[in-house]
């Protein structure tokens, strides 16, 4: 994470709106799922994107993967602008920039055997012979810790944890540089989650991967990430090195979010948690700072303009007038 390293991914002022349709199917408004999001990812690091449902973190991941086209802004991957690539250009980037679904098991065709699903990316993106493909598949199965005998099974014959391993294997056979992990542990039991997280770290080491780690689980993010960006209502409100963020968050929303995590053995959140209300309705944007309606520190100047991310030293930035 040296300052000299060139970013593998640069995102500048990225925006994406979705039309809101009324009962007749007419567009009756828009939701700003992403609004002026900017950040950089350096090679080999894990950048966490955290926030609550509807904050835009999944839209961000899908925009990076080319599943959603952004309305504005710029995405540069390894120095190349990939914001508005053609389908063919996108396919050339795909092997190096991979998107991993929340439940990679669902990303497997239910009618295909594991072997066939794992072979597909190699058939599409490489000129390997059938024998070379088989060797590569056997290798990746070993690396994700699954027995070769599972290759002839169908996805529904595997457990949830095993399906995730196959989903990861499918993405990693192409040896990508950057992997966008969208909620990689949601819905898993803690013991399975532990093994999936260990696997992700091991694979990061073996393949020298860069991760964009999207999650709502702050305990997991704290464990896995080098830097963390906190999103609220479509914007990044704070970005900082993980240890800095968890030790001394500067944005009031980050502070509230951290205070909501149960701390086993510590003080109970049910005694200390103070944040009231819920995230704003995305179809009715709030003027000024989006968090001000719930913020314990809100002041009249918060309504005037949307605060920009302000560097606070040691790689920490927050979008708050009082941070």
């Amino acid at each position, binding site marked *: 994470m040296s300052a000299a390293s060139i970013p593998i991914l640069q995102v500048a002022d990225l925006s994406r709106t979705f039309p809101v349709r009324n009962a007749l199917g007419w567009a009756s408004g828009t939701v700003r799922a992403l609004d002026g999001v900017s950040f950089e990812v350096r090679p080999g690091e894990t950048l966490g994107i955290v926030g*609550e*449902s509807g904050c835009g973190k999944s839209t961000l991941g899908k925009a990076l993967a080319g599943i959603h086209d952004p309305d504005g802004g710029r995405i540069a991957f390894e120095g190349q602008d990939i914001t508005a690539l053609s389908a063919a250009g996108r396919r050339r980037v795909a092997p190096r920039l991979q998107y991993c679904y929340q439940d990679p098991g669902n990303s497997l065709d239910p009618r295909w055997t594991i072997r066939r699903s794992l072979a597909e990316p190699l058939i599409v993106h490489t000129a390997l012979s059938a024998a070379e493909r088989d060797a590569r598949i056997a290798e990746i199965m070993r690396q994700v810790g699954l027995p070769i005998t599972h290759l002839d099974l169908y996805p529904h014959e595997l*457990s949830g*944890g095993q399906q995730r391993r196959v989903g990861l294997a499918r993405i990693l056979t192409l040896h990508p540089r950057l992997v966008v992990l969208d909620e990689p542990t949601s819905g898993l*039991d*803690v*013991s*399975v*989650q*532990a*093994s999936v*997280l*260990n696997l992700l770290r091991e694979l990061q080491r073996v393949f020298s991967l860069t991760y964009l780690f999207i999650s*709502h*689980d*702050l*305990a*997991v993010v*704290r*464990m*896995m990430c080098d830097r963390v960006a906190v999103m609220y209502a479509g914007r990044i409100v704070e970005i900082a090195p993980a240890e800095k963020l*968890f030790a001394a968050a500067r944005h009031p929303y980050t502070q*509230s*979010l951290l*205070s*909501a*995590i*149960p*701390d*086993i*053995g510590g003080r*109970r*959140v*049910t005694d200390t*948690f103070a*944040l*009231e209300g*819920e995230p704003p309705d995305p179809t009715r944007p709030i003027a000024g700072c989006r968090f001000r309606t719930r913020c314990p520190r809100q002041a009249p100047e918060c309504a005037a303009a949307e605060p920009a991310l302000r560097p606070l030293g040691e790689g920490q930035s927050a979008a708050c007038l009082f941070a």
Partner: protein
Amino acid sequence: MPPPGDNLLEVENLRVSFSTEAGTAKVLDGVNLALQPGEIVGLVGESGCGKTTLANAILGILARNARHEAGAIRFGGEDLLAMSQRRIETEVRGRRIAFIPQDPYGSFNPLFTVGAQIMEVMKWKSPLRKVSEGRGLAGFFSRYPRARRREDMARVAEMLRAVQIPDPAVATAKLPHEFSGGQRQRLMIALALLPSPQLVIADEPTTALDVTIQAQILKLLKKLAKESGISVLFTTHDLGTAYEICDRICVMYAGQEVETAPVEEFFRRPRHPYTVRLLESLPRPGRPLAGIGGEIPALIAPPSGCRFHPRCAFAADACRGLRPPVTVIGGGHDVRCYHPVVEGAPA
């Protein structure tokens, strides 16, 4: 049979199996559990451990292919499994035992206003309802007595204020989709508490919610339960949530309860090897993640004896034979293991 003590709920040696295409799954294998009045007990375990089946068994809403093999569920000294369906429907379910479901989205009919749905429940389950009022079809066609309806409506408004739904009069005229997930869960809590139950069964009520909303809901539920002295059986797979709200925790593994302890003791000195490994699986800064090797067993042909033995580092011949009896550690801490862990508890 021990005399019914001052426990509100006692589950004793409950066995429930499900007949499936692949065979008979022994989902609950001799489960024991007790709840005192006013106590919040966390039923903790990973998916497939049987916690939801146990909750459903207490509510008497097991699936059709379920079979009650043995055991008793005593509520206020009476065995619910021996009680007539009619009595359970009129006196117990939704009255003395209420339910908060996991999914706040699927729990309301999208076509009717929230107020209409709450009042429909109150028509049948209000604590003011007299036993003489019509049952079954007669009750269906009989009108909601006007005087009771007025009183019930006042109670509903009061309860909605208690669960912090702003402006109850406006809220009851809204349709379910006009509420967020957190607000719907507040409404579900209100609906569960309106009949003044003695016991609330909450089945993973915060799993579908974001962490800040979860904190709000847990805070609310704990406050309301403690204020009115209601017992809560809180099932969850999340140990952090259990720490927040519970007085006592009972851990289940593959259809057997393995350890029960007061919450502080539970997290400070876990004694069952499974509990220890489960706690070590939690991500915590500055410590490697341990995880548990192996997979949760299939319940159609479960391991003999202690069902955790194939994944346990301390497994011996005895563990494969009979299920371990209860070892009383003291202070309400019970563990079902031949080799309870002595040291090595996480910080």
